[in-house]
């Protein structure tokens, strides 16, 4: 009986190496375009700074040397650490609440209808109002700051998670049930791997939003952190330091995004490659 697949081991090896070569040249291409993208962005900044007075828009060289001076001097790390701590706390709160909301809305019709109104209100209320209200209610302290940074992110994150959970392939759960997989095996082996990519995407999205909110709450009502420093130097008309602090945090966030989340993503999506 001939069930020839037309695919012997040699051929599959050749195809694999060919695919490797294609992936290799694709990587070079991606790198080149990325480098060009960064260079053109810095060039735009440079041209802008040449057109405007340096007190309004200092150029990249000036800002980077200010940043280097700050790093050598060391105080900037305290502010970065404080801001990172607030981001971590606010993100943890936002994610925990959004997970509960998102999962319950996806799995229960009642919860879906009930929280729908909350979510719409949450999205509609401007973050500024939420933050100011929390500062008034809770007081001008770190608790209010962290809650204020978390609250505006929760509704958007919850919607993301709800859609992700709704996207679970129920046919695979049907398969697991037909083969009599236990509840535990169903959750660990069938549900969790389907939820993981969505959780990662939500984490990315959530951290990106929370970090902007944290700067905002620091600017509005805190005496420490990167957001406070940016506001402080702005009041002093020192745009070089404003941009140096902003740039320092761009680097920190890039590191988290590329080095940490990117690595996790490549692991999770191993099966999607080729």
């Amino acid at each position, binding site marked *: 009986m001939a069930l020839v697949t037309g695919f012997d081991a040699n051929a599959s090896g050749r195809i694999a190496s060919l695919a490797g070569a294609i992936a290799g040249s694709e990587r070079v291409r991606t790198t080149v375009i990325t480098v060009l993208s960064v260079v053109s962005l810095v060039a735009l900044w440079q041209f802008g700074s040449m057109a405007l007075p340096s007190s309004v828009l200092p150029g990249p060289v000036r800002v980077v040397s200010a940043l280097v001076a700050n790093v050598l001097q060391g105080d900037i790390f305290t502010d970065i650490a404080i801001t990172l701590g607030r981001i971590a706390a606010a993100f943890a709160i936002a994610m925990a609440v959004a997970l509960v909301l998102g999962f319950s809305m996806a799995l229960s019709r009642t919860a879906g209808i009930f929280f729908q109104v909350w979510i719409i209100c949450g999205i509609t209320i401007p973050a500024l109002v939420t933050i100011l209200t929390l500062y008034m209610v809770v007081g001008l302290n770190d608790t209010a700051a962290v809650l204020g940074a978390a609250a505006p992110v929760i509704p958007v994150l919850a919607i993301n998670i709800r859609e992700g959970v709704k996207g679970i392939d129920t046919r695979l759960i049907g398969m*697991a049930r037909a083969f009599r997989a236990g509840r535990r095996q169903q959750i660990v082996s069938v549900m969790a791997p389907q939820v993981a990519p969505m959780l990662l995407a939500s984490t990315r999205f959530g951290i990106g939003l929370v970090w902007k909110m944290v700067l905002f709450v620091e600017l509005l009502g805190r005496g420490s952190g990167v957001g406070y420093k940016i506001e402080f130097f702005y009041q002093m008309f020192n745009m070089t330091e404003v941009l140096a602090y902003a740039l320092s945090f761009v680097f920190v966030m890039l590191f988290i995004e590329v080095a940490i989340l990117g690595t996790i993503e490549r692991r999770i999506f191993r099966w999607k490659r080729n």
Partner: protein
Amino acid sequence: MTYPFRPPAPVQAAMSQISLTDIHKQFPGRGGAGGWKALDGVSFDIATGEIVGLLGPSGCGKSTLLNIVAGLDDTYEGTVAIQGKPLAEQIGQGFRVAYVFQEARLMPWRTLRENIEFVLQAADFPRTEWAGRIDRVLGLVELAKFADFFPLQLSGGMQQRASIARAFAIEPDILLMDEPFSALDELTARRLRQSLLTIWSAFRTTILFVSHNAFESTFLGDRVLVMSPGPGGRIREEISLRHIKRPRDYEDTALFVESKRVVESLQRHMGNRPEHH
């Protein structure tokens, strides 16, 4: 083979492994109204090692019957007995059911090997047996080289072959198949039917399958049960195909003669009722 496989069960037409008696199934209607009578008094037996096809138009309750035999649906009237004992009792006692769906339903983030490991784990096979079982079943469907490939790296036909291998890996007491080849092009489907019979001849597993393809049912089955269209699906005719010799060959004239008979029966029992979906 060095690992403990059960010897193939001898074909014993006399002994019925599974018997369904007077199965009725009513789906509740929305808002308490009437509902849908899916099955209206279905009775039949399946012998050990037999391949039985349920043939009928869509909406005749074929898949509902499969779910009942799989133990996934227990809201029905009538009895399902496994070697004389109620199905519900047997399922906890190591009675193993495997399923081949219309789609392969492999987990895309697991390799073929890992997909089969999933069902071996679910069926409580000791870990030491896994590799041997996986190699054997993948070899039987000619996918041995692809054990460590991810499903999305393979064609639809190869994925479905892997899902057949997965089903046989746990050596089920009964294998249920719900339109297993209807999503494939005819050429691929033909090769897969051959592949299925090859792996079946190594295990002699009892198979109950559902199809709306008369030729397919004739090619695979020892018997075909022709069902009337829903609502109230029931078995109208039983056609024995045991005289068509195995291993079966697509060129066998007996196959064409019999499949014509099956088509005629199907047409006779379709009646003039509009098709339901």
